[in-house]
């Protein structure tokens, strides 16, 4: 059982790290501001979600797990609204 949980953690954390890599590559290589915003806000939040998912078996108790999920949900809500605001300010400047 422990081995299965460890394998689950490794798979999820590695997948999350790959999404972080994709987000950074997108931020550095995409041609204009809006496409870079697209790369950043989607890939990184998915990467964070996968890392959070991978860490869930290692926290103690349901409240610790709830806290991890709360961090991710807060990041999702915050980043979705922040990306809308940034995109609107970019469009107004153009």
């Amino acid at each position, binding site marked *: 059982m422990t081995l299965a949980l460890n394998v689950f953690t490794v798979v999820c*954390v590695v997948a999350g*790290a790959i999404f972080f890599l994709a987000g*950074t590559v997108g*931020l*550095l290589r995409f041609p204009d501001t809006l496409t870079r915003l697209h790369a950043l806000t989607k890939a990184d939040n998915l990467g*964070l979600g996968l890392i959070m998912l991978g860490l869930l078996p290692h*926290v103690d108790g349901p409240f610790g797990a709830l806290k991890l999920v709360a*961090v991710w949900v*807060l990041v999702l809500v915050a*980043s979705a609204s922040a990306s809308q605001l940034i995109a609107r300010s970019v469009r107004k400047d153009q």
Partner: protein
Amino acid sequence: MREFLLCAAGFVLAMVALGLVRILRGPHNADRMMAAQLLGTGGIAVLLLAAGSGLPAAVDVALTLALLAAFASVAFVKSGKSSGSGE
């Protein structure tokens, strides 16, 4: 498992540091803000990985960082207006 989580944290930190090149390149101020946002998200991931490898209090720090990163973006959008009023 602990070593693996620390290695993953180091990798994510390296990705965030690489993303900060965008602050140097610009060209728009929003691009620089996006790199700061990447620092926020990546920092939260590193803190969660640290919490998984035996430092449970780091989750609280991650929660605070998530809140501050959101405020930073809102402050950036509002600072573009001369009156500071925003939308």
